[in-house]
């Protein structure tokens, strides 16, 4: 039977190998290494801080934040969930994971919001950006773990870089969408009074797009959390490592404990960031509603991981 490969075979794998192994790595490894510096600084600071803060103090502060932003129900849930994590003996791992996730989300925000704003201002840039974001979202993360290890080595920071690649698209997309969806006549009104571009962005477009941008932040955060196990493959620690180790040793209990920790952390962060995007006038979530949401939320998180 004839097939096209009888005429021509394309050695794609060899090409990529020679591109990455023989050209990119020897020439640019120092450059990529230097990119790690800011991430390392933020991560080390945050990890050291979170692990140094006493468990009870941290729990109280996070519960207070939850209470102020998302209401009483979420605050009570936060107290119970964090106490439970401490009781199953995963507190330090949870803090490490949290510092990883916060670092990733911080860099996603710093990169993603300006890129989203630029995309909202230029149709051409948006047209270029869209396929890039599509690739970032669809390409299996294992594919880019290999070059990341070759360029950055193993450890926490390469794990965070992989997480940033995976979690960046939603905040870019939703910043772009949010700013484009600001009502045309409001933009015209701002223009007609003589706003500069910066004044318009700051006073009108950004505040009005904030809900959508916060939804993007929430999605980015959830994606970052779903990467913690995969990041553990290349040497990141925390709850992901607990799950990964459990997998390696067929220790179903350990893997479950780590998984529960991730889910609880996800629920707390999800509820808090979701409520940040809601208008201040309608912020009331009862404890019952929180528990009622619990299962649908856990399912959603799992669906994203799959």
């Amino acid at each position: 039977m004839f097939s096209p490969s009888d005429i021509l075979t394309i050695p794609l794998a060899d090409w990529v190998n020679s591109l990455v192994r023989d050209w990119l790595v020897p020439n640019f490894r120092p450059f990529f290494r230097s990119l790690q510096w800011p991430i390392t600084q933020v991560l080390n600071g945050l990890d050291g801080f979170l692990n140094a803060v006493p468990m009870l103090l941290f729990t109280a502060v996070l519960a207070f934040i939850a209470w102020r932003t998302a209401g009483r129900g979420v605050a009570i849930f936060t107290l119970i969930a964090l106490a439970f994590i401490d009781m199953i003996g995963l507190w330090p791992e949870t803090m490490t994971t949290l510092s990883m996730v916060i670092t990733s989300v911080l860099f996603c925000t710093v990169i993603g919001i300006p890129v989203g704003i630029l995309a909202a201002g230029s149709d051409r840039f948006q047209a270029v950006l869209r396929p890039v974001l599509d690739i970032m979202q669809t390409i299996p993360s294992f594919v880019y773990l290999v070059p990341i290890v070759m360029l950055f080595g193993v450890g926490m920071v390469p794990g965070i870089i992989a997480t940033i690649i995976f979690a960046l698209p939603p905040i870019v997309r939703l910043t772009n969408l949010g700013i484009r969806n600001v009502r045309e006549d409001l933009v015209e009104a701002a223009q007609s009074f003589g706003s500069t571009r910066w004044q318009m962005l700051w006073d009108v477009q950004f505040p009005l797009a904030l809900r959508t941008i916060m939804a993007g932040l929430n999605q980015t955060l959830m994606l970052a959390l779903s990467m913690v196990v995969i990041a553990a493959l290349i040497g990141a620690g925390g709850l992901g490592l607990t799950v990964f180790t459990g997998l390696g040793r067929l220790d179903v209990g350990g893997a479950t404990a780590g998984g529960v920790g991730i889910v609880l952390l996800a629920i707390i962060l999800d509820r808090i960031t979701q409520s940040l995007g809601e208008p201040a006038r309608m912020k009331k979530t009862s404890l019952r509603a929180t528990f009622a949401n619990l299962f649908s939320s856990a399912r959603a998180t799992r669906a994203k991981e799959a």
Partner: protein
Amino acid sequence: MQDRTNIKVEARSIFKVFGQKPDEALGLLRDGQTKEEIFAATGNTIGVQDASFEVGEGQIFVVMGLSGSGKSTLVRMINGLIAPTSGQMLIDGTDVANCAPKVLRDVRRSKIAMVFQHFALFPHMTVADNVSYGLKIKGIGADERRRKAEEALAQVSLGAYADSYPDELSGGMQQRVGLARGLASEAEILLMDEPFSALDPLIRRDMQEELLELQRSLKKTIIFITHDLNEALILGDRIAIMKDGRFVQVGTAEEIVDRPADDYVAAFTSDIDRSRVFTAGSVAAPAEALDIRTDTAETAIARMEALGRDALHVTEGDAILGIVAYRDLSASLRENGGALQDALVTDFPKVGRTTQLFELYPLAESGLPIAVTDRKGKLMGVVAPQDVFAKLATPVAA
């Protein structure tokens, strides 16, 4: 027509083409092709073609047209929200169609404010912050902004709502906020893009009257866009009727209703309330009066017959004493060879020049001619009752 120094806004041959090949479309347009032909040939839409107008200080210039006639595009070219394809737009002599972005921004900050059809209030700001937005852009401090916002809100009688949010107000109130935002910036030119179209008819009437009331004290230069001819006739010092991006007719309310330029305008004016457009002055016949000192009953009868009138006013100097009717005069002449004095009726209808026709209905019932007087009471003209109704009848198209 106007003093050149008082022209605030002047458009010189403004064209706007939407699409990829504006120059080609303009060329075809100059060759006399229609909007449809040009769209078929180039895919470009003619927004506005060859619009020229002048608006003097303190005038209300109304641009009236149906949707798609280019009126919203036209008003957006006055403050540069849309750039014309060709032509000049002079604001106090500055051509905003061809200037640096910084110049345009300064014109917008200091000279022009705009009021929008759907209010365009910023939902995340309080009413006071909305009203003072233009001042914030100019870098004016918070205290002064607050003071001016409160002043502007007081002008539209919304002083109590400074700290509310726009979505807490009704549509009419929101548009008052929109108007206050335009007033607070202290711009002399106010662009109003169908500001009352989104409001209920009753509230619309109130807002129209309120605008006229405000205008009496503020004397802004207003360019007002509407699709409602009645609104145009009520508000406009001058009215431009727009169709397919072109001015079909520009003139005062009376000119447009009385002498429509073509069938299109005539179709519009056919069902408007003419009694609110025309004034007593427009139907008055020249003043003819008898003088109490020189005229007698005989000369009076002779004058009436010569003029073909049933009654004449009697004056003494500039004062009107009353009116004598032919019927009364001839009766008294037969009975007692009486004087002019005996037939004089001192209770006669009297109006000013600018009184609108609908106010003449009850006066016309007496059957006597209505005296049109100037401010001092001097007789300027006479309106015969039948002339009132003749003017109201729509001219039938020949």
